[in-house]
Structures are given as structure tokens and as C-alpha cells.
């Protein structure tokens, strides 16, 4: 009886996940279909003949460059997030400084702001600073998505580290900064990796910042490239889905590697 129930729940769970993630499956297999197969009146759930032409087409159409740009923007933004957020979270967890609560509140509130509110002013500011049509516009703005999230997650984590660790280090003659780098950062590694991954996802998915601050197509990430391609490709869905598949691939790879830690990190970062 117990075993039968277990078996039923597992099957039901798998069935649900298959239905729920069907769109992702549909995206990937459409990328391998021919144009005529897509427009058949009865849909095929497995490509009749597997074609790689869509992938070849899109890589001829600058997707390599878009991919590189996405990596540059998301990578640089992630590094910036970590450099800013890790020490700040540590300081807010450990030091008794004035205005600590307002600063924590600042991070909480900025997380909730719509991008559209800062878009027009920053466009004008970046224009005056000649930062339009460079990587800097999207890198700086994408980092604003990751910084508050990471500060809040990491602060909670640092609060849980026993103080004795740092005290022992300071007896050994380590300064505050050396203690932070040598002792705190290494033991916080798993949480830092989660923040890095999530900041990377945030920036990887950005469309509005790149589209607004960069009119130069050579600097566009995959999202802006694909938005532009929708008009040009029209109904060539296999090419568009190949484009989409390539854009999603890094996200799925990182997710598969870090699944357990990510799920935990997301919960602690959103509830607090």
C-alpha cells in the first residue's frame, strides 16, 4: 500500500513536470525541424529529420558576437556585484556603524524599483558622460539588480558565522581586511557562488538596459539580438527557436550544476 502510494506520487510528479516544462522541450525540438514540418497541420513531437541548418544560419547571422557580448556584460556585472556586495554584506553583519538600518532598507527598496524609473535619467546622464554605446551602460545598470539581492542574502549568511573565527584570526595578527579575505571569504564560498550565479542570470536576461543604452548592434547581448531578429526572421520559427535555445543554454547548464544551492539561496534571499 505504502509502496503503491509512493509510486503514484512519483509518477504524478514526473507527469506534472513534463507538462509544465513542455514549452522548453518544444523550443528545443523546433530548432531542429525544417520549415515545412513546422507548418504541418498535425504537429510532430519529434523532428522527422533532424536538421542543424537553423543553428548554422543563426551563427552566420552574428549570434556568436551576441553570445560574446552577453558573456561580457553578465560576467563584468557579476564581478562588480561581488566586489561591492560581499564586503558590504560583511560590514553590515559585523560592524556597529551609524545608519545601518537605513542602509539595509535602501537595499530592500532598490530591489523593488522598476527599471523604467531610472531609464530616462540614466540615458541623459550616460549621454553626457559619453557612456552610451559602450559596455558600461548595461554593465553598471545590470549590477544594480544583483547588488541589493546579494547584500541581503550574504548578510544573513555572515550573521550565522561564529565570531570566534575572526577573533582567533585577529590574535594571530591578521588585520580586519586580511581576516576577511583569508578566513571569511573562503568559508562563505558556497553562498558567494549562489549570489554570483543569480547576478549572472539577472544580467544575462536583461533586455531593456542594453536596448536603451546601446544603439550599436555590435554591443548587443543575445536578448536584444533576438528581439531584433523577431522582425527580420518573420515566421522562420526554427531559426528563432535555435536562437532561443542558444540563449538559454548557459542558464540551464549553470542551473544543473548548482541546483541545490541555488534553490536554498533563492528562498533565503527573498523572504528576508
Amino acid at each position, binding site marked *: 500500500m505504502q509502496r503503491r502510494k509512493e509510486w503514484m*506520487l512519483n509518477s504524478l510528479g514526473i507527469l506534472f513536470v513534463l507538462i509544465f516544462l513542455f514549452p522548453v522541450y518544444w523550443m528545443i525540438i523546433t530548432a531542429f525541424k525544417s520549415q515545412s514540418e513546422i507548418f504541418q497541420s498535425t504537429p510532430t513531437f519529434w523532428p522527422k529529420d533532424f536538421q542543424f541548418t537553423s543553428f548554422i544560419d543563426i551563427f552566420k547571422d552574428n549570434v556568436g558576437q551576441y553570445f560574446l557580448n552577453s558573456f561580457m556584460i553578465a560576467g563584468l556585472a557579476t564581478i562588480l556585484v561581488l566586489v561591492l556586495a560581499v564586503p558590504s554584506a560583511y560590514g553590515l553583519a559585523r560592524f556597529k*556603524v551609524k545608519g545601518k538600518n537605513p542602509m539595509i532598507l535602501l537595499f530592500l527598496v532598490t530591489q523593488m524599483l522598476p527599471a523604467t524609473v531610472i531609464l530616462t*535619467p540614466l540615458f541623459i546622464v550616460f*549621454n553626457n558622460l559619453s557612456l552610451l554605446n559602450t559596455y558600461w551602460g548595461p554593465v553598471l545598470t545590470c549590477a544594480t539588480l544583483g547588488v541589493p539581492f546579494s547584500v541581503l542574502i550574504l548578510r544573513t549568511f555572515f550573521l550565522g558565522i561564529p565570531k570566534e573565527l575572526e577573533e582567533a584570526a585577529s590574535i594571530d595578527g591578521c588585520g580586519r581586511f586580511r581576516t576577511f579575505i583569508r578566513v571569511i571569504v573562503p568559508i562563505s564560498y558556497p553562498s558567494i557562488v549562489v549570489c554570483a550565479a543569480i547576478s549572472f542570470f539577472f544580467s544575462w*536576461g536583461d533586455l531593456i538596459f542594453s536596448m536603451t543604452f546601446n544603439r550599436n548592434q555590435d554591443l548587443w547581448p543575445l536578448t536584444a539580438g*533576438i528581439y531584433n531578429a523577431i522582425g527580420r526572421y518573420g515566421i522562420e520559427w526554427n531559426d528563432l527557436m535555435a536562437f532561443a535555445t542558444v540563449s538559454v543554454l548557459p542558464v540551464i547548464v549553470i542551473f544543473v550544476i548548482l541546483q541545490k544551492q541555488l534553490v536554498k539561496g533563492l528562498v533565503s534571499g527573498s523572504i528576508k
Partner: protein
Amino acid sequence: MKKGRWGEYLFIYPAVIFMLLLIGYPLIYNIILSFQDVDLNSLATGDKHFVWFDNYKALADQDGFGISVWNTIVYTLGSVVFQVVIGFLLALFFSMKFKLASFLRGVVMISWLIPLTITALLYKFMMGSGEGIFNQMLMGIGFIDDPIQWLSNPDIALWSVIIANIWVGIPFNMLLLSTGLSNLPEDVYESASLDGANWFQKLFKITIPLLRPVLLVVLMLGFIYTFKVFDLVFVMTGGGPINSTEVLSTIAYRLSFNEFQFSLGAAAANILFIILLFVSVIYLFMINKDEEA
């Protein structure tokens, strides 16, 4: 001693200053901008005179502005209600102890991680009237006779975007509610079982009342994150057909960056901001009260 203090500030302040420069300053600038008269010309000449509330008045007369406010509300409430209800049911299902539960619950997160631009494109494809899989399947099982014009019928388009957004939001709601469920005390359920309570009684008399704080947080967070929607609407419909899916953020974007009426765009963004600020303050008040309790 003084040196030590400086060291502490060096840890904390760079991130704070960064956020103040890139979020705080633009926020104030945006408010000023909305009271001025700035377009592409005045940006070049530097003539930024104040017109005070003229932009807000012009906005009220703007084609599609009223409907964009209404659409934003419908979009947000429609999305949040379904996300929370479906997310809650799934959280209940996955809280039963079976081997694959936590693995499957994690895998579902993929829909939340896919860039919204891609999700929008994917749903645009699936909701195509002829080649779209949604219509093909619904017609295949005989549920409908004629294809549904998911994105080109003005009466339906907003709900089509809502469907895509529900798909995106379900895993996150489920995850937060699952965590809430796993923190509920088990002994209450045991004594309820001894008293002969059935599943529904336990759900409505124990689970939902106990989960109320978490449910409220999830509802508020859902509202805040959905209300500022941009990518999904922008890519799926661009606000059309005939303004039927226009929301506050897309109209603000269009005014600023297609029509280059920066001040008008800033005013529209400000209205979005004020509503969100209001809800955020309620939210912050709520979680603060929770922590004190």
C-alpha cells in the same frame, strides 16, 4: 580607533554609494524631469524650463494612458492570483514525502530562470493562430473549432500575456510556499488527525491560517514584481493590438525612447513608481511587524 572606523566604512560604503549613484540619483532626477519640458531638442540646447504639472495633465489626455493603468492592474491581479493558487496547490503536492519531490520541485525552477525575452518569444510562437501548438492541440482534441487569435484579438491578448507570466511565476511562488509549509509544526496535524479532521478541514482550519504571514509576503512580493512588467509585454505584443496590452512601463518606454518626449515618459514612470512605493511601504511595514512579533 579612528583608523578602524574608516576601515569599516570602506567595507560598507562602496556598495551603498554605488546604489545611491545609479538608483537614488536617477530617481530624484526622474521626478525633476517629470516637472520640466525636456525632449530631444531641449536636450541638445540645454533649455530645461519647468512646466510643473503640465506633463501629468498631458499624460491624462494621452491616447492609451488610462487603459495602460487599467491593464497594469488587471495584469498584476490576474497573474498574482493564479500564480499563488497554483503555486500553493503544487507546494501542497510536493510537501507530501516522496522520493523525487525535492528534485522535481527544483527542476521546475527552469521556467523562472529563462530570460523573459526568450519566454515571450516562445509563447508568441506557441500562441500563433495557425502554426501555434496551443491551437493545434485544442483543435486536435475538439475543444475549439476555430483557432483562437491569442495575440491579435484585443479582447484576449492581455490574458494571453498573463498566461505566459503565470507560467514564469509559478515555481517561485511554489518555492516560497513550500518553505513556509515545511516550517509548520507537525504536532498540530497529529492531534487534528486524532480528533478525526479530514484533509479539507486541516487545509482550511490549520494550514491556511498558520500560513497566513507567508501567504501575505508572497502576495505582496508577487504584486511588486509583476506590477513593473516590461519585457514580457514588450516582446510578445509591444502593447498592441490597439493599446489592448499597453501597461505603464511600456507606455513610459514608448514616450521616452520612441517619441523622445523624455519628460512625458518620466511622468508615466513616476506614476508607476508612486504606486509601487506605496505597496512596498506596506510590505516593509508587514515584514517589520513580523520580525518584532
